[in-house]
């Protein structure tokens, strides 16, 4: 076990807990920089993970830190994507200007959703954001002059300062830079008064208010900041998919985004990244399983006789080819995580780390949830 021995008040202010932690992140960053040479064929998938991570960061600020659960974040992703493409391609603005305008527009949309949110809490807010997402999806379909409607709209490769990022690796580095920037800015806000005010609102609105936190202002700020980050993710997402159509920004995408923060671990920036890895790679795993699973299980059942094997193969094949299997699995995973690991992958990671750092002395009870009878411990 390692303890951080603090000898100066300024140690509280550092971005990293100590040198060991900082060096760990530097090593991770170095690994990500050489990644294009290690797995050149999978860069597109990794870029999607990075974009999802930016989106996860956005929803983590809102759901994980401010306690406002949104089921409408696909709409912000869409607004960011369409606005960026409109500004860059229809109006011909420089890439960075288009991005900045798209982010401002998305943040404004966030404020718009945030305003009624001040009067709503919990599940009502979630329903309101869901309704917002449905409306926005309808707008994407109908506003053909800007969005191309159902015909969709092709997206060019990004051109920044006259340099076309045509290569996958270049786009990967763009996503990586944006993600690291987003993580840095967000962790700065979270260790500043504004971030603490968000956490205060999550844990106890009444106490936050009595300490001088203007609930309306800070909830709106959380919505705006979250939407702005989602706008950035949306702009990158547009380039990643290369073609925008309204049905991309469906409720399912919103659920995936929420799944990301819950599975990753609410209330930690690590969780956003872990969740992004999970959600971006899960559909890949599902489609792999779809192809392989009937043959495996059928083969295993073939031990009982060839006819049983064929019957099982056809049955499993029919089951895995059912439409709606993917959202079903997403939903199941969400439920299982909420039941068995509310702190998500990040919580599991903390437990693993403690297990190894205290190895023969680890006690299971360390993380057992205590029954507590204080107000804020009640199910929220």
């Amino acid at each position, binding site marked *: 076990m390692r303890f951080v021995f603090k000898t100066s*008040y300024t140690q509280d*202010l550092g971005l990293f807990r100590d040198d060991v932690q900082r060096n760990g992140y530097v090593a991770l960053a170095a690994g990500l920089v050489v990644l294009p040479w290690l797995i050149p064929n999978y860069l597109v998938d990794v870029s999607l993970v990075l974009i999802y991570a930016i989106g996860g960061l956005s929803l983590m600020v809102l759901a994980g830190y401010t306690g406002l659960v949104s089921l409408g974040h696909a709409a912000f992703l869409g607004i960011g994507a369409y606005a960026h493409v409109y500004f860059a391609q229809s109006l011909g603005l420089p890439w960075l200007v288009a991005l900045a305008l798209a982010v401002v527009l998305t943040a404004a949309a966030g404020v718009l959703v945030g305003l009624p949110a001040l009067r709503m809490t919990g599940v009502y807010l979630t329903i309101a954001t869901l309704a917002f997402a449905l409306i926005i999806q309808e707008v994407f379909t109908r506003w053909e002059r800007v969005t191309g409607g159902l015909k969709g709209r092709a997206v060019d490769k990004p051109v920044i300062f006259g340099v076309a990022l045509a290569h996958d690796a270049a786009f990967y580095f763009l996503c990586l830079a944006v993600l690291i920037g987003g993580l840095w*800015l967000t962790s700065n806000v979270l260790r*500043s008064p504004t971030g*603490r005010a968000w956490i205060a609102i999550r844990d106890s609105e009444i*106490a*936050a208010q009595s300490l001088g936190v*203007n609930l309306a202002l800070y909830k709106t700020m959380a919505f705006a900041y979250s939407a702005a980050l989602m706008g950035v993710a949306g702009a990158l997402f547009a380039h990643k998919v290369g073609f925008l159509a309204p049905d991309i920004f469906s409720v399912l995408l919103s659920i995936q985004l929420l799944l990301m923060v819950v599975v990753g671990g609410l209330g930690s920036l690590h969780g956003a990244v872990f969740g992004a890895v999970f959600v971006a790679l899960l559909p890949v795993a599902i489609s792999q399983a779809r192809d392989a699973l009937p043959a495996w299980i059928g083969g295993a059942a073939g031990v009982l006789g060839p006819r049983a094997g064929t019957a099982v193969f056809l049955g499993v094949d029919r089951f895995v080819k059912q439409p709606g299997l993917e959202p079903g699995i997403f939903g199941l995973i969400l439920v299982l995580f909420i039941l068995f690991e509310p702190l998500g992958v990040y919580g599991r990671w903390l437990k693993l780390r403690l297990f190894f750092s205290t190895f023969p002395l680890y006690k299971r009870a360390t993380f057992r949830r205590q029954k507590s009878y*204080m107000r804020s411990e009640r199910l929220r």
Partner: protein
Amino acid sequence: MTFFKADGLSINFGGIRALDAVSFDVEAGQIFTIIGPNGAGKTTIFNLVSRIYDPLQGRLIFRDEDITAVAPHEIARRGIARTFQNLELFEHATVLHNLLLGRHAHKRSRFVEELLFLPLEHREAVETVIDFLDLQPYRDSLIANLPYGVRKVVEMGRALCTQPKLLLLDEPSSGLSVEETDDMAFWIQDIRTLLGITVLMVEHDMRLVTAVSDRVLALNYGRPLALGTPREVQEHPEVVKAYLGG
């Protein structure tokens, strides 16, 4: 100058009159305690002062200013801080962060400065409170991992971090052991004498009340029964009747 004055406060919950024309004033530097049986309206007074409820009638005056219509989040900036009966700490944050939130009313940084983390903070005031209340060992612990007694002190510390002129303590001794209650009594006296903060307190433990209070107000069913020194109020026939029946 009027330091703090409640003038004819009334409030209804549904058909029940929770407070009926309650008036009292607190002088600067006093420790003023409100006692009364359960449901007498003690915490309701606190919620009126911290502007969570709007009074039906009556006025609240603080340092010559009418605060009856001030927004709830503005109260801290005016110099009134409070604790809660059943603790309202930020459970998934550390003690240090809870205390730093106490500095929120003094926040000067803008959002852009925070994005870049240009440190413009008031950590010194927090360190003073940590030393004052002996919270150094718990500094980086999560609230969720702390025993009740320590949480109680942290909540008081958080209120002190706002550098209030008037501190509202809602049952500071509830859930504490006898020793912890004695510590609490010393702290309350120190808060008054060393920090010069006026204390308005709701309390059931009469030992603590007599030990620290300058003046006591007894309430029953939202009506004031008696107002005076702890001894006068304890011996007041109406108060005896309210507590013992008969």
